[in-house]
């Protein structure tokens, strides 16, 4: 048994002959914010996508909130409801309003009636500061606003864990702040979060732990200050140096 809300062990992932994850162990405590960094192609996205089984790991075990994610008997749709995911490209449904985006899963998965779903949806939009944009379609929103709607779409389902895959990478610099602010608010409310991102400033003052991945493995991990100031591995040092020069 485990006390961790996310407990992934010995995750391997192959894409054909490509060995992308080479035995990753990741344990995350409740209310913890884990920041994942690493060079392009190191397997960060693949790891996140294995956690909610958007990607099927080749081997290993994943338990999230006590649910064995890889057990064929697990109702995967039910399990995914408790794991929010935010994508680099927002992936809002363009044919629906912001409110429609947020209420779809509330109605179809959580089984809420229309009125209740809309009340919960509006509350979620309120939390990301977009209550007055409920009736706008994604095309009428800025990138930052779209990403906040995407976050609302996840948090409306009251997930136990939130996964963020480069949530601000597709945004114009002046729009990044508003999304980070929402993420900070989530963190303060006690949400468990795993964040893949290059926003080192955010990592420094919001992350509990920074995980450095390279070539399909976790090379080292620790508190932000330790990883950023005194990394113990050469590869980590090289990567941090590279990022900070930018």
């Amino acid at each position, binding site marked *: 048994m485990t006390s961790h809300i996310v407990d992934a062990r010995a995750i391997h992932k192959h894409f054909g002959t490509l060995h992308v994850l080479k035995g990753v162990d990741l344990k995350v405590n409740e209310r913890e914010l884990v920041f994942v960094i690493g060079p392009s192609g190191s397997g960060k996205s693949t790891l996140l996508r294995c956690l*909610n089984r*958007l990607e099927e790991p080749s081997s290993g075990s994943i338990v999230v909130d006590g649910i064995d994610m890889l057990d064929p008997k697990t109702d995967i*749709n*039910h*399990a*995914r*409801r408790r*794991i*929010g*995911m935010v*994508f680099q*490209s927002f*992936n*809002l*449904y*363009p*044919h629906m309003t912001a409110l429609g985006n947020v209420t*779809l*899963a509330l109605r*179809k*998965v*959580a089984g809420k009636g229309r009125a209740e779903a809309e009340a919960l949806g509006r509350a979620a939009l309120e939390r990301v500061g977009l209550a007055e944009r409920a009736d706008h*379609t*994604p*095309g*009428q929103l800025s990138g930052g606003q779209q990403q906040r709607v*995407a976050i609302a*779409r*996840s948090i409306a*389902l009251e997930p136990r864990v939130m996964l963020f895959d480069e949530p601000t990478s597709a945004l114009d610099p002046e729009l990044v702040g508003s999304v980070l602010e929402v993420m900070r608010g989530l963190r303060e409310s006690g949400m468990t979060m795993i964040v893949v991102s290059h926003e080192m400033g955010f990592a420094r003052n919001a992350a509990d732990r920074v995980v450095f991945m390279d070539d399909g493995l976790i090379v080292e991990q620790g508190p932000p200050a330790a990883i950023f100031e005194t990394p113990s591995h050469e590869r980590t040092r090289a990567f941090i140096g590279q990022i900070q020069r930018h």
Partner: protein
Amino acid sequence: MSGWDKFVETFFNAKVMWKYLPDILSGMVVTIELALLIIVTGLGAGLALALLRSLAIRPLNWLIIFIVDLFRSLPPLVIIVLMYFGLPYAGPAPSGFVSTWLSLAFVLMAFSEEIFWAGITSIPKGQWEASRSTGLSFGQTLFNVVLPQAFRLTIPPLTNRTISITKGTALGTVVAVTEILGQASSAMSNSYNPSPLMMGAAAYVVLFLPVVVAARWIEAKFAWKR
């Protein structure tokens, strides 16, 4: 008689037109019945095949692709003739009406399956992933997220195909279907005058122009900003 009068007398002969108006009207009814049957069954079957194809069952998909390619490559007239003259040897003898209906429905099924399928596959993977990550099932994602977007993309090509295949109801004359063209050409040979043909042309315009205009309207209405 001036040239103009002669022209009118030949192509827009009021007496002939009046006499054969009921025939043309009954032809219109047959054409409308045929067209509606073809559209409903053809598009319905095309969508059903596209949905089956999205299940990604290999052998089933090969079969679907074979059927679709077959009906897309055969000229509709050939299918109608085969069904009308050939099927009686194999089993039931379909009427000209049924042969025309089923043949064109198969053709529309084949073309619309390809259009629906192209629409479904053009929806970015991220849409599936966002929906599945919130717990929606494959089917719920297909019906709530993917198809509504795919339909908007398919409306223009689907409308064009539907109109052009439905106009193929005129091929029914070959197997003695009394639709517009059939009525018009028999009226023409009975009256030794081409005026019924002009009425037939007018009947097609009356039937299809509103459809084309409606398609334009639907296209504009369902466009949305990305």
